[in-house]
């Protein structure tokens, strides 16, 4: 069973910094779709113990990326952007939704709410 506490959207970076400065390892972010909202769970680890917090966002909101703080969050956030269409601000390296899916793949395939359109153009950078 996991325990996680809810934080506000603006507090994500502050929380992540707190975890970083206190020597927690980044484990992963998990995105869930709950009643036309997205819930993103951030999970950290220290001494085999997991610590999590989560945010609820509406599909149009932008989430501040923590990839500047935890570099390991980069592929995870790109994946969530790609699979669910959630937008992230200030990603260190933005794959623009082409990390896993090709140009002909379904768009945000893991979400039933469609919020993203793929802009044609640059392939992978």
């Amino acid at each position: 069973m996991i325990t996680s506490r809810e934080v506000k959207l603006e507090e994500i970076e502050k929380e992540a910094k707190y975890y970083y400065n206190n020597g927690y390892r980044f484990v992963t972010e998990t995105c869930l779709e709950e009643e036309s909202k997205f819930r993103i769970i951030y999970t950290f680890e220290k001494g085999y113990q997991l610590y999590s917090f989560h945010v609820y966002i509406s599909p149009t909101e932008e989430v501040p990326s923590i990839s500047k703080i935890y570099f390991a969050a980069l592929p995870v956030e790109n994946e969530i952007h790609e699979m669910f269409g959630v937008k992230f601000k200030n990603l260190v390296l933005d794959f623009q939704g082409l990390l896993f899916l090709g140009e002909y793949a379904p768009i945000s395939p893991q979400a039933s709410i469609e919020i993203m359109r793929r802009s044609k153009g640059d392939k992978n950078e």
Partner: protein
Amino acid sequence: MIRMSEKSTIPFGPQHPVLPEPIHLKLIIEDEKVVEAYPAFGFVHRGLEMLVKKKDFNQMVYVVDHICGICSAMHGQAYCQAVEELIGIDVPERAKYLRVIWAELHRIHSHLLWFGLLADAFGFENLFMLSWRIREKIMDILEATAGNRVIISVNVVGGVRRDIDSEQARWLLDELKEVEKSIKELDKIMRNNYTIKQRTVGIGVLTKEEAYMLGTVGPVLRGSGVPIDMRTTGYAAYKDLDFEPIVEKDGDTYARTIVRVREMFQSIDLVRQAISKIPEGELNVKIKPNLPAGEAISRVEQPRGEVFYYIKSNGGKYLDRLRIRTPTFANLASLLHMLPGSTLADVPVLVLTIDPCISCTER
């Protein structure tokens, strides 16, 4: 003449001889040095996490077994443990021990496979053949005990499907003795060979702090001196077995190689311990056809590191969400960290040093 800084872009993959799996890297090269590296994946992406909507939770065991052919038993184990935690049942002791035995056999064969590929990456084909020949013995054991060579699908929710009887266990131990002898030889080659040292010592160094904060897992992390091994949390039968995480200090490719070779001996030892301690009893327990609502997490140490399963159910036969964070996905950040600054010739070795499993990563 004005010397311009010559930057050129070299694509690496997707189809290339070093790795059997397609990974694509776009390398920006300046004077033989890599300055930037951009990975591009997606050649193996299938979208397995979404199959939970179409297959019920029992059928999903078979699907997660096919995430990756190398550590399939551990994927099944991690998934089953998560579902078992969600339902709140306890697996019979014998099943726990059997899970350990098969998981450790998988670890040995995976490390041997990796060792061969590494040798092949720097052109030591002889060693590649040697380690794959040793690996065939493990494949024989798997085939004899579980019925298939690569994907054995022994786990079910609530236990395991097959048994290893005492006669088979005796034969297994005999085979393992020979495997151990051959791995000792491999160990000797690895510690004394000039070529291997030239190509691995000091390549791809990660300091202890870097490895820790980049969220790396498995032998990459332990090769940098951080003793984190999920098995010490005591899932399955590991709580009754005696072992220590294997750690090396140097943090380069050579240290990781040593970690993996030492882990093979450790795995052999664990199989022996498990066989000597295995209790009699049932193989699996009956489960109800419907799941309770809730969430569960399970973490299992795979050959490449820790795998993280998150499941969520709203009740009913089908899970609502399955999220898998595979070890290679966690190690990607460290690969992207190591590549800039290396020479072009070292790129295959660097890619292999994290033991990438692309079909895990992309699912």
